[in-house]
């Protein structure tokens, strides 16, 4: 049964992979799929804070915005390559993460949440009002799409031609997004079972016990914040070079809420859950976008459903809808053994 399920899963993955190359492909569907991938990366990035460290971050979209604007502005002013911009945007996001994190990560609980919220609102205000830099509410249009320039390779090989491929349409972005999701996913899986990840989980379970075991709380939290911010900024850079237009109102609080909702839906601290949460909520959003006007309601009211989902999940399934999946995510033998011993002692 499990084997058959796995085979089915692989088949589905293969079908999804091949879909953009088949003649049945549809631009709209592809667009939604790429959007899902952006949110998958965001959800995995956010998951580090409330999921691994137990810190509620309400300002995640601030880093997403910083990444997107870093990418957008570097592209239109310096025409920099996407492959250079992504690390730069991630570093810039992480830099702001550290700047915000060092003074505020001493706070816990609600206060930390509020400070991050204030930060993301300040980011939006800055993007709206510093017109000299960001063009303000008009946004930044005309960002060049991603391109791969291999002319240097051609000259190296002595071929006299321009090997340059500019991304057009959704298909190349589909694969680029997939690459990004896979990279972040693998990184997260490795992080979760690393020394760093164990320290984070220890902080989440019991900060005092963690500190007495030699975990430097502030340092590990700042690292978590920086990594999370860097991933958010990376997703922002991709987003900017994909939609080719960014404006401040794309980075409002609701986006933070939406990403948080995905993480909560999938189960806090559950990487697979974050992916599933992104798929469900973006798909739901698209469905409601079609369904709501038919009922004579504005499309913004789809947030009604999101709010309700959040409340119901917290009430009835606080571990997310996939608690079983959450338990199988952990691969570290050490932690599994410790958990088993703890469970045995509890029942005894």
């Amino acid at each position, binding site marked *: 049964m499990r084997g058959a399920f796995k085979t089915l899963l692989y088949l589905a993955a293969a079908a999804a992979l091949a879909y953009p190359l088949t003649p049945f492909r549809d631009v709209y569907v592809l667009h939604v799929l790429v959007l899902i991938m952006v949110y998958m990366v965001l959800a995995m990035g956010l998951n580090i804070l409330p999921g691994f460290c137990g810190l509620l971050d309400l300002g995640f979209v601030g880093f997403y915005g910083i990444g997107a604007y870093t990418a957008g502005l570097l592209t239109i002013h310096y025409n920099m390559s996407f492959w250079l911009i992504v690390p730069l945007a991630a570093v810039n996001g992480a830099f702001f993460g550290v700047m915000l994190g060092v003074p505020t990560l001493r706070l816990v609980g609600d206060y930390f949440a509020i*400070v991050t919220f204030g930060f993301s609102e300040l980011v939006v205000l800055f993007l709206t009002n510093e017109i000299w830099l960001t063009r303000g509410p008009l946004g930044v249009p005309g960002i060049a799409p991603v391109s791969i320039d291999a002319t240097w390779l051609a000259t190296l090989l002595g071929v006299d031609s321009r090997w340059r491929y500019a991304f057009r349409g959704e298909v190349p972005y589909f694969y680029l997004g997939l690459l990004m999701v896979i990279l972040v996913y693998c990184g997260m899986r490795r992080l979760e079972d690393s020394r760093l990840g164990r320290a984070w989980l220890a902080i989440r379970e019991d900060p005092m016990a963690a500190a007495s075991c030699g975990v430097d709380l502030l340092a590990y939290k700042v690292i978590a914040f920086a990594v999370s911010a860097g991933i958010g900024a990376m997703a922002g850079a991709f987003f900017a070079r994909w939609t080719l237009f960014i404006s401040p109102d794309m980075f409002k609080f609701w986006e933070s809420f939406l990403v948080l909702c995905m993480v909560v839906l999938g189960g806090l601290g559950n990487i697979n859950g974050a992916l599933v949460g992104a798929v469900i909520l973006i798909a739901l959003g698209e469905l409601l976008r079609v369904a709501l006007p038919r009922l004579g309601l504005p499309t913004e009211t789809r947030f009604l459903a999101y709010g309700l989902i959040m409340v119901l999940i917290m009430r009835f399934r606080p571990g997310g809808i996939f608690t079983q999946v959450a338990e199988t995510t952990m691969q570290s033998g050490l932690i599994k053994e410790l958990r088993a011993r703890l469970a045995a002692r509890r029942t005894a």
Partner: protein
Amino acid sequence: MFEQQLVNGFTLGLIYALIAVGYTMVYGVIELINFAHGEIYMLGAFLTLSCISMGLPLPLAVLLAMLATAAIGVLLDVVAYRPLREAPRLAALITAIGMSIFLQNLAMIIWGSRPLPFPRQALPAFFAEPALRFSEVTVTWMQIVIYVTALALMVGLNLVITKTRTGTAMRALAQNRTAAALMGINVNRVISFTFALGSGMGAVAGVMVSMYYNTMYPTMGYLAGVKAFAAAVLGGIGSVPGAMLGGVALGIAETLGAGYISSPYRDGVAYAVMILVIIFRPSGFLGRSMVEKA
């Protein structure tokens, strides 16, 4: 000019203070940032509008809206927060955000997403006229009404908290819930009372803002809620007089900031105040420090 800014800031500040007491009281008794409080304030404005359009006079409409929002506040607690009382704090906080968004969108479905004007015909004609005029400063009758109502409500609230049995129970709960329960206090009833009281205050603030700016819209609770929360933090979260002081201080700071520093960053004043206070003086003006530090 400066004096006029001061007058306008004071008006705004009193309104923030009325919302802030709701945050601070709820935080005092259950240590939860009730994110949905901003939506209660918005509902106060819209429910008043609905009552007026049914032909009720303004004072009656406001009173009914207060009662209705008090009921909504209690319902919010019973349905959403009470089941999570023993759950991790994160769960309750996420629920609060969820409820906030739910209520906001519900209002959008009921009243539409476009801003509505406050029904002028329900206001007495003299409201817009200046009541006091010193050389360059004018205070309108509407501002006077706002001052009187807000101050009366706050004095009344303070009396309720300090003089009545339920108020004493509230303060006992804020100090130690278990001990309060052991003394025979019906904890859930007192919490419901706190929600009702805070929501009623918030509703009045909503009416006054929509009257003052002559507009109301379903998302109005968001920004006002954040600012009032900043005011509560500034005054010291958990302290009712602190929330009043914090509200007035924030209102004046915001108006002066907009007038003399930079008007596009008007809303930034509240965020900056909030962040700085939380980092450097988490106990605010009058509160005891509730910020746990790791």
